[in-house]
């Protein structure tokens, strides 16, 4: 097999061998090929990511220069949304809409579909040597449900009253009573569409996760035992379990909130609810805490859904570019399993301030601190893996190495939040925003960039420009920190996360940290400019990038054993696995990498 030619015939020529040529619709639109679905997921999710980022850039204008006419977009938005942006000045309601939709879009329509739907779909079946997903049609359905969910979410901007405005957490009773009444459609209003979209999105992730787990369990190539599985696949497997088990309770909660809004039930309306000075016309007897429990039962494992695939990508990139095996593969695997398990038992640490009782708080404080153990093991393993490696600092590796300290800051700033007493001060301040953005933005998004630069050659047969990639990396790294580090400072000074004027009303209290608003905003806008470089690089490299062979990074894992781009059915020869996933620089070996499917060392 060592004589296997590096370049295989082009996919179009190959497909004639055993397949009829697929038409445009079944090849690019209603495709059942996991690779095409992965690319569909990736492009859709990247568009949503950009859209969510634009929402944030608009919010940052309001925070830095409250009440002033927005430049550039102000005129267009002022005429398109005269009620929300009269004269290009943002109303509080519209600010709330943008906040709620930024959170929802970034998490449920951006990061999860990108790190799980796109990378999981494209890379995972290749890495386990499978011809496709176990259920290709469900896979297609999963993508299209995601698409429909995303469109419903976007559509809510254009209904009377605008998009949901009760935060991405949609806490009742506020969410129960918002967007109802004169001027709102009973069904086509922001909050109800939000609920509808969430229910559809959870369907989509359910189909995806069933598919992922079945594929990993059933379709591994001969010889690919569990301890030879690339860590990326382990991360995706645990992520799939979290999606499978943690998301349905929010679906249940979504159904209940929809009932509250449409059928007038009181799942979340407490006794004696007063709305606008009058007793609300509801039976009462419900509990807002019930929503919070069900929501966070989803939304805490959700954090791990956001981070685990990212850790998987980073592990692949780091081992490949240090040219040595990962330092403690088994510790990584067990940590990620434990992490997935523990993440289901920490949800109420988001609720310390709700008065649910000190005993409950003490329990969740304990489990939350326990979660940091496997997390620290993972980060330590990644860090020690760098030790003694002959590191290649190409673009994917830069993003992957930057992930470690960025995720470290995000993780360590989370520790104070785990403690009940400290959380009372920090809860709902910008400190929280800074903390979780460090995990998701320079953490997960950096890992996603690393993944895009790393697997781009497999998808297209060309590399992305390394020069532009480095500009993109350094610009993003600096800007991300300019945006998020001041948030930690502001938060400790007590700046609340939902102030619509950036805190001007409370100037007397927070004057020493108020000036950071403009700094962070400029950081966000400049970050936007650097992403233009990335978009240009991505589009340009598809046609003009440097051509490379099947295995440009000299990698060991199975996805590099296919022709480039891989044809329908993936492998052109039967695959058998002989060794672990990261056998780099094996002593006595001729090359510095020993592919998993290579019988000779």
């Amino acid at each position, binding site marked *: 097999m060592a004589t296997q030619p590096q370049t295989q015939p082009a996919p179009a020529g190959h497909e004639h061998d*055993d*397949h009829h040529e697929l038409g445009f619709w079944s090849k690019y639109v209603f495709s059942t090929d996991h690779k095409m679905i992965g690319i569909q997921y990736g492009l859709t999710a990247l568009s949503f990511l950009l859209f969510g980022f634009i929402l944030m850039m608009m919010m940052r204008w309001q925070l830095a220069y409250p009440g002033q006419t927005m430049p550039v977009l102000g005129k267009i938005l002022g005429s398109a949304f005269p009620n929300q942006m009269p004269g290009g000045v943002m109303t509080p309601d519209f600010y709330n809409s943008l906040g709620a939709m930024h959170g929802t879009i970034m998490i449920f329509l951006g990061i999860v579909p990108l790190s799980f739907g796109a990378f999981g779909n494209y890379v995972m079946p290749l890495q386990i040597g499978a*011809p*496709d*997903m*176990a*259920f*290709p049609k469900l896979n297609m359905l999963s993508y299209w449900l995601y698409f429909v969910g995303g469109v419903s979410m976007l559509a809510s901007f254009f209904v009377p009253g605008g998009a949901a405005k009760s935060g991405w957490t949609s806490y009742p009773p506020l969410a129960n009573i918002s967007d109802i009444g004169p001027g709102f459609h009973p069904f086509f209003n922001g909050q109800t569409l939000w609920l509808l979209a969430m229910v559809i999105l959870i369907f989509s992730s*359910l189909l995806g*996760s*069933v*598919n992922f*787990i*079945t594929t990993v*369990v*059933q*379709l591994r190539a001969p010889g690919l035992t569990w301890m030879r599985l690339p860590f990326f696949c382990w991360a995706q497997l645990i992520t799939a379990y979290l999606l*499978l*088990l*943690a*998301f*349905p*309770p*929010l*679906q*249940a*909660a979504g*159904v*209940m909130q929809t*009932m509250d809004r449409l*059928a*007038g*039930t*009181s*799942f979340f309306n407490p*006794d004696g609810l007063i709305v606008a000075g009058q007793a609300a016309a*509801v*039976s*009462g*007897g*419900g*509990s807002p*805490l*019930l929503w919070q*429990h*069900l929501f966070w*039962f989803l939304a805490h494992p959700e954090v791990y859904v956001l981070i685990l695939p990212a850790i998987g990508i980073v592990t692949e990139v780091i081992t490949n570019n240090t040219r040595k095996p990962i330092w403690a593969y088994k510790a990584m695997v067990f940590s990620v399993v434990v992490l997935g398990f523990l993440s289901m038992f920490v949800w109420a640490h988001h609720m310390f301030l709700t008065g649910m009782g000190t005993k409950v708080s003490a329990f969740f404080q304990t489990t939350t601190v326990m979660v940091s153990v496997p997390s620290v093991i993972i980060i330590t393993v990644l860090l020690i893996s760098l030790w003694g490696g002959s590191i290649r600092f190409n673009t994917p590796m830069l993003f992957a190495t930057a992930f470690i300290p960025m995720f470290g800051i995000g993780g360590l700033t989370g520790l104070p939040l785990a403690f009940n007493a400290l959380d009372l001060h920090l809860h709902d301040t910008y400190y929280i925003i800074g903390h979780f953005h460090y995990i998701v933005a320079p953490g997960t998004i950096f890992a996603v960039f690393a993944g895009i630069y790393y697997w781009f050659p497999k998808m297209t047969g060309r590399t992305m420009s390394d020069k532009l990639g480095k500009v993109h990396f350094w610009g993003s790294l600096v800007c991300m920190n300019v945006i998020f580090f001041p948030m930690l400072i502001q938060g400790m000074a007590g700046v609340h996360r939902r102030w619509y004027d950036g805190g001007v009303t409370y100037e007397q209290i927070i004057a020493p940290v108020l000036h950071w608003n403009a700094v962070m905003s400029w950081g966000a806008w400049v970050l936007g400019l650097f992403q233009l470089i990335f978009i240009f690089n991505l589009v340009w490299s598809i046609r003009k990038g440097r051509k490379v062979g099947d295995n440009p990074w000299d990698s060991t894992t199975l996805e590099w054993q296919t022709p480039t781009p891989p044809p*329908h*059915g993936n492998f052109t020869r039967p695959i058998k696995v002989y060794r672990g996933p990261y056998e780099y620089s094996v002593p006595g070996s001729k090359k510095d990498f020993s592919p998993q499917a290579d019988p000779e060392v």
Partner: protein
Amino acid sequence: MEIPYTVKPRPDTGLWNAKIGIWLFLASEVMLFGGLFSAYVFLRFGAVPGTWPHGLLNIPVGTLNTAILIASSVSVVFAWAALKMRNFRRYQVFMGLTILCGAIFLGIKLGYEWPAKFHHFGAYINDDALYKYEAYLGNEFLAEEGEGRRRTEITGTFPTHEDHEAWENPEAKEFRLRLDAVNAEPTNPDNYLPHIFPRPQSDKVVTIQKEDVRWGSFFVPRHSSYFAVYYTITGLHGIHVLAGLIVFGYFMLPVSKRLYERDPEHMANRIEVVGLFWHFVDLVWIFAFPIFYLF
């Protein structure tokens, strides 16, 4: 391109793909219904002590429905066994029986049980007006008996259409209700024993001042936490029954006969998978029946 292990089991796991898939799907369904059932627990334990409604549902009909659903679960197993024995005719008979049972279940639920509640009305009385209606509430009697329950609701039906209009009309001051047996004779100890058969409605009609009513509603989801959970869980369960029936219906079409002739094992696997789903739907009902009808 062929996906491996769609029909034959993978040697080391001993399973074919769809069997893993359906079990994972069911795990997710457990979490979905788990969320709803935990909402039931949360709301019931959070309710004002002694106010959770009892005896509003029809136990004999519910029991019949339970038996019908269990019977359909048995017959779907026979249908699968018939395919394993390569007897397609027998499969069709049992699958037809399963569909029939499922349809009867849904018919009773949607055609009889739910609509019977829609014209039933309950009025919750304000705390400071409870004494006026003591004759229909019997709280003194309940306190003496040490039942630990408190009655603040008067239930019944509107005797005439005008009474319904009076309830809807903000100008009207009062409306009348034909009382349920419990409110007609609140001191009858018989009320507080479990009843298999619902007690007939009384002829007694009472006039209720609207200013005394805190909250009134037909027995629809908005009536109370109890009916909110009842309709949501049985409704979602009903959607699952309907989905199962649609899939069963598909397996009665000629396309399934053709699949059977081409690959009978594949067809048997499909019935096994949908049968597992059907057992789950049955199981949800086994949980829903006692918590709403009996406890």
